[in-house]
């Protein structure tokens, strides 16, 4: 392994749950230079192994979790892992990123990536240490919630080799299409339904522990990047004040200020100030906060550990607060927090849950859903009393919860009103109003995973917090390249295993020096730019082979037809603007009119198909 670049172990662990076969497979050294790590490396490994046409809940689906060369160093926020799979919610690539401590612990076992395929005959736990990897029976864990599972798998361990657990809850076991995989009890690989894929494989948990170190080749270069990053994180108001002092929920009032806070299943963006204040970061700090904390080596420390009565938990985060809150016309912070705790314990994506509930509420208010359909539950907008109960019924697929568990698109389609599902590629739109920014809208449209604030480029960070990088919100000309560049920045952050919030303070440059310093490779910003373009192309190739077309890169009709007021002007995203933005985004990427990466682009990015 000495020939392998520093920062990597050069080894993948491949597990076939059907046969029980476990293999150590050397990484291809060229892949780490071309795909870096995390999201990029996982996407490449995934693309090489999966049949894009497979049923996401079949044994043929492949899960890849990859780490980055920065994991195991003290690079700020570099503790994130990345999971890629075929999504049961969208049918496209699922690509989910998570903080916490599991990923660094996994890397310390001596592997850069974990590949899981097949289906175990009965529930199992995968145990990984530097010495061995084993598939263990987990029948006694099946049915336990996330907290119970983590407790069961970590109690009684020696202090020196404390295992870290990644697991699913009952929602994943029940194959809820937006079930999450949880880490450190409350951190989630949340979007696109990885938990359902784990559930379909009878995989309850992966426990890891190890002591393998990450070497740094050029300490000086690494340190210069790390110092600059920390300095800039301490400078930017969003990282040094907002997220640190209020957590992500501190965004609520600011996003309302720029007219991007959704309301009533995105029917409008109108809120009373006093309502918004009820769910603000300040209110959370006054009423629920026990302490703040951070993920692995994170100086931002945006975690909020909270309490509602006797019940302790974490969060709610911004997205959760808004999707279960104003998007459902609910401004009851305690109810939102309790529902959030339940999502964490049961393993549910809070964004898709909130979006699906908002859709159900609109169906209900419009008389399309009747009380008999909802098991008698009153789904009027604003009814906070049903929040937690609805989470439990969804995770358990109980009664109406079974329909909720399919996500809003399938729910609304079942009642012949798919237009009331606020989704892109069947994934629920997160808590930023697309009519308030072309860049935000285009980000949702072209995110490879369906609507996602993070995979979609996190454009809001430029709309309001961009500082010198703030961009026009309604520029037809600039939005396509802006969002392409934001997508690329996100791909690099995910591939480096670092937090999206660092983007509030700086872009790629410090990471380029840290990555080059750790590996001794030339990961200049120009090289990283090429890596990002390569990863985007591979994700796109998979989606196309999985059946996606240009028609999927669009927004629900509501955003073209129903205006909202943004900065005093009525705004929609007209169909011709949608078409133009999409077409120009493809051009900016070097993709054809159908959104397929052109052969010359694939050639220049050295992307070749390796599957038979």
């Amino acid at each position, binding site marked *: 392994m000495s020939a392998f670049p520093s920062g990597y172990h050069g080894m993948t662990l491949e597990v076939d749950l059907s046969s029980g076969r476990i293999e150590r497979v050397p990484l291809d050294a060229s892949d780490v230079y071309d795909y870096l790590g995390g999201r990029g490396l996982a996407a490449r490994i995934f693309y090489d192994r999966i049949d894009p046409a497979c049923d996401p809940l079949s044994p043929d689906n492949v899960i890849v979790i990859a780490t980055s060369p920065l994991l195991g160093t003290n690079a700020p926020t570099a503790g994130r892992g990345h999971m890629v799979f075929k999504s049961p919610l969208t049918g496209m690539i699922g690509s989910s990123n998570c903080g916490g401590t599991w990923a660094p612990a996994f890397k310390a076992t001596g592997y850069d990536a974990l590949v899981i395929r097949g289906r175990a005959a009965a529930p199992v736990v995968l145990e990984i240490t530097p010495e061995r990897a084993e598939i263990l029976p987990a029948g006694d864990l099946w049915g336990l919630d996330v907290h119970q599972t983590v407790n069961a798998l970590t109690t009684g361990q020696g202090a020196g080799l404390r295992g870290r657990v990644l697991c699913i809850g009952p929602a994943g076991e029940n194959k809820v299409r937006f079930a999450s995989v949880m880490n450190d009890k409350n951190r989630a690989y949340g979007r696109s339904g990885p938990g359902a894929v784990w559930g379909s494989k009878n995989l309850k948990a992966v426990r890891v522990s190890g002591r393998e170190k990450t070497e740094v080749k050029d300490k000086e270069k690494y340190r*210069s990047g790390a110092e600059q990053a920390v300095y800039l994180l301490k400078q930017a108001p969003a990282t040094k004040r907002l997220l640190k002092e209020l957590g992500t929920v501190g965004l609520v009032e600011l996003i309302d200020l720029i007219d991007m806070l959704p309301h009533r299943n995105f029917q409008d963006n109108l809120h009373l100030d006093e309502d918004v204040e009820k769910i603000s970061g300040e209110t959370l700090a006054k009423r629920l906060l026990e302490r703040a904390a951070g993920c692995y080596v994170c100086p931002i420390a945006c975690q909020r550990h909270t309490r509602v009565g006797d019940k302790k938990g974490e969060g709610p985060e911004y997205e959760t607060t808004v999707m279960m809150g104003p998007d459902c016309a609910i401004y009851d912070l305690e109810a939102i927090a309790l529902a959030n705790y339940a999502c964490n314990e049961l393993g549910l994506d809070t964004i898709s849950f909130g979006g699906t509930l908002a859709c159900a509420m609109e169906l209900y208010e419009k008389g399309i859903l009747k009380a008999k359909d909802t098991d008698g539950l009153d789904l009027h907008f604003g009814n906070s009393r049903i929040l937690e109960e609805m989470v439990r019924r969804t995770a358990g697929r109980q009664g109406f919860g079974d329909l909720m568990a399919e996500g809003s698109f399938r729910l609304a389609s079942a009642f012949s009103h798919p237009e009331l599902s606020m989704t892109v590629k069947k994934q629920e739109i997160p808590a930023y109003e697309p009519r308030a920014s072309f860049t935000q809208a285009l980000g949702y449209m072209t995110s490879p995973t369906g609507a996602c604030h993070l995979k979609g480029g996190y454009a809001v960070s430029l709309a309001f917090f961009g500082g010198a990088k*703030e961009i026009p*919100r309604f520029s037809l*000309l600039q939005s396509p*390249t802006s969002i392409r560049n*934001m997508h690329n920045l996100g791909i690099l952050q995910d591939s480096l295993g670092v937090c999206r919030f660092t983007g509030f303070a700086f872009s790629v440059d410090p990471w380029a020096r840290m990555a080059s310093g750790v590996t001794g490779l030339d990961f*200049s910003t120009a090289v990283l730019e090429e890596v990002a373009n390569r990863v985007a192309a591979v994700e796109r190739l998979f989606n196309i082979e999985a059946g996606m077309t240009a028609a999927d890169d669009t927004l629900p009709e509501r955003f073209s037809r129903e205006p909202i007021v943004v900065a005093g002007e009525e705004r929609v995203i007209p169909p011709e603007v949608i078409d133009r933005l999409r077409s120009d985004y493809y051009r900016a990427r070097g993709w054809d009119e159908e959104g397929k990466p052109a052969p010359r682009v694939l050639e220049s990015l050295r992307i070749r198909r390796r599957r038979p």
Partner: protein
Amino acid sequence: MSKKTWKTSEDVLRLFQAVGRASLLHDIQDSHSGNMAIRHRDEAGNEWIVITATGSQKGDLDSSQVCFLSPTETDFGYYKASSETDIHARILSLEGVAASIHAHTKDLTILTLDDAAKPNQPPPFMPVDLLGYYYLGVVPVDWVEVPSGSAEMARIIPDRLARHPAAVIQTHGTFTRGRTLKEAFFLACIANNSGAIVRLLRRVGVDVDKLRRKVESEPDSSFAYEPPAYTINDDETCEFPEEKEILLEFRKTGARIFESRLSPFHTGSISVRGVRSLLYAPKGSMPREIGGPLLAVPLEAGDADSAELRLHKQIYAASDFQTIIHCFVPEAEAHSHWELPGHEGPASRVVPIDAEGSFLYLVIPVVPARTRLDELVRLLHDYKVVVVRGGGAWAAGHQSLSEALHHLSSLREICLYRFGAFELGLDLRRMEPEKAKRW
């Protein structure tokens, strides 16, 4: 019987006000100094010389301070007009000349001072920067017995301006001429900028005469390219009115470049890349009240592209940058020739010694005039701002114009801190962060 009235014209007044205010912002005038004049044909077809009033504040002109004079007869406006009206009238009679400006251009005028016994003939001024070299060439400098509004000046200056775009009267200031007032102002700003660069070079001990000899003998290798001829009558062009937010960004950025003296009037360039076209301001340094052409051009290279536009297109073709700004930052140009103590030859990088600069930019590279494009792009990727010796400074942004502007503004400040520390006698090498030296 008709009563004579004070003649005025809204368009002319607006132009004089805009150029007057801009000349103060660019610090080529004091509150009352200088004057400007144009030839003007009114709607009735009458010819006029329009000139600022004597003692008027150029930054706050009103209609009573802009005098319309008949070129053929003396009228009451003549008695209020500049004391140098006769000089301007003769300049305006030169073929192809329709405007003239006299400005104190302190950075250049100071360089023409001497303590020799009078009368004497001072040497001409030779710019060492790209803009001065190509737009001005040799700038004649004259000593005159009465250096203000004199008949001697009215004889010498038009003669000089018949052969040179700019001429200096020792101890007084510069006269420039143009087809339009904006062109005359453009040349006055270039003249002052060239003077500022030479002054900075002298402050840090650069052998300016040696540099001049090099520039004169090897202009091709001393400068990045020959700039395009100054264009007139295109400043109102706007080819992307529908992009309201970007339009605002261009105007804001252009004004900031001008007001912060990041580049002389109507020099440098600004661009934002789209997928199908490029939005381009070829006169990047644009005062708010004057503006400049705002063009939408194809992304693909065209035969008619200027060298500057070609570079914008080439950088975009080789990168994912969203915005580019090119400026002729005088402090950066001077720094690029600075031979730092302990080093042979001009510096190959600018190392920030101030707190913010050193965290934002560990170093800023300086490259020779004819650096290959791929090298320039590579450096822009790694450093975001690059100084081209004899070619201005290029900055790029991944998202916004503001981002690229910030790089150039920081560059100027970083240079100023370094010059300041040097003047204080401080050891720059000890002040430069260790990490910057190792990179």
